[in-house]
């Protein structure tokens, strides 16, 4: 009897301990695999997003180039032949000269527009002179009689990765657009600062503000704010909306000034 009890107890105990160890081991192993899988999916999603954004930039560049090189050239040639036509008309039919002049000024305007659009599509200043100059240019262009856009930034801005530059520039562009389009703002301040933790970009307007929750609920809303979020997602950035109806909006963007994890390897097609 004694033996039965001893052996029985020993066997049961060993089984119990085996079960406990097995549960703990199996659970930990599975959960680690799950976490790895999740991490991998997240990385993949980010990569996809980054590729999409880059494809978008490439497409813009291509359109800008086509506009400039093809339409622009064609327009210049058209202007040349119009000039020739003008000279012939002057001799034969002086009455039509006014019409020719009018056509010429329309053509000039179109040429100027094509150049402006193709330049706006690609942030040339950003690529050549960096973020601060690009934002300065943006502020200058946006300012007119009704709105005043001002850039305030710390003296020493480090050179950022091109991807980071572009992201911040596009976000600033959208935020300023929004402030002009929706807020009826008079003054807009772009604030760019380098902190030990990263780069802080704020766009502050004195317009009518909005209710963020309402906007987020709206299924038919624009793409602007959503695009900001996906752009930031790629570089692990954060956006904080300090907004409320009835007062100016303050929107803060924070990004780490590190080499981003996601290296975009998609080349122009």
């Amino acid at each position, binding site marked *: *009897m*004694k033996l*039965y*009890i001893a052996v*029985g*107890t020993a066997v*049961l*105990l060993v*089984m*119990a*301990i085996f*079960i*406990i160890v097995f*549960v*703990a081991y*199996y*659970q*930990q192993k*599975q*959960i680690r695999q*799950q*976490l790895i899988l999740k991490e991998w999916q997240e990385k993949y999603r980010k990569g996809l997003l980054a590729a999409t954004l880059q494809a978008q930039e490439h497409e813009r560049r291509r359109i800008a180039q086509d506009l400039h090189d093809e339409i622009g050239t064609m327009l210049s040639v058209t202007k040349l032949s119009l000039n020739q036509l003008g000279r012939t008309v002057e001799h034969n039919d002086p009455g039509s000269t006014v019409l020719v002049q009018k056509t010429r000024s329309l053509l000039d305007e179109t040429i100027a527009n094509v150049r402006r659009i193709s330049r706006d599509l690609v942030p040339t200043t950003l690529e050549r002179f960096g973020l601060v100059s690009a934002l300065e240019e943006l502020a200058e262009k946006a300012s007119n009689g009704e709105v005043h856009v001002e850039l305030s930034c710390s003296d020493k801005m480090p050179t950022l990765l091109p991807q980071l530059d572009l992201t911040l520039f596009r976000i600033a562009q959208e935020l300023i657009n929004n402030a002009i389009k929706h807020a009826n703002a008079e003054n807009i301040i772009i604030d760019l600062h380098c902190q030990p933790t990263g780069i802080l970009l704020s766009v502050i307007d004195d317009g009518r503000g909005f209710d963020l929750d309402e906007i987020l609920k709206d299924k038919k809303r624009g793409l602007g704010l959503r695009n900001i979020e996906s752009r930031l997602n790629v570089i692990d950035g954060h956006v904080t909306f300090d907004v409320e109806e009835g007062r100016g909006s303050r929107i803060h963007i924070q990004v780490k000034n590190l080499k981003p994890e996601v290296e975009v390897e998609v080349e122009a097609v």
Partner: protein
Amino acid sequence: MLQRLYEIFVNHPIDLIAELISFLPFTFGVSRLKFLKKGARFLPLYFFIIIGRDFTSNIYAIKKINNLFLYNSSAFAEIVFVALLFSFEIHKPVVKRIVTIGAAITLFLSLFFWENTELSAGILTLSRAYALLVVLVYFNQLIQDMNVKNILKHSLFWISSGLIIQFTGTFFVYLFANYALSSNTESDLFNLYWNVNQFMYMVFCLFSTIGFWVSKYDKENYT
């Protein structure tokens, strides 16, 4: 009277340790009460009942009254608390119902094995078998759900482990209680088996204490 108590504990030091060690999970359980999940909140009460049982049994021992029925009745408490502890944790409705109905059936069957003056092999084995099954069901759920990040910080894992160690360690002793833990057993043998029982209980207390200790991580420990 104290003289008598002193004698008892000098002769059975392990009993003294086992009785004192109940305070450990009890205090930890009470101090962590706000972190504990619904089912586990009853566990400190269980330890309190055990403390009360041991206190009463000491008094009976001093007065030389047979106190074994106290251990039979605490097995009933065990069934109830195991059911409470796990029925809140198990989320499949069918399994949940099996656990509660199982508890009812076990309690009912145990009534037939009631003994006043002896440890009842029937009651004690039934309660252990029931608890073992419930713990295994819970472990099975744990493996299927895979929603605990770090199992070593999961309070119910420690408590369950303590439970199955205690119950497997004492299962056979109780199964043959008529031989091993009856009034006819020679006292050396009785003490040996009784000490095994107490030792397994201490393991359970320690594991429960760890369980209560890690309960503060429980909230963030789910995926």
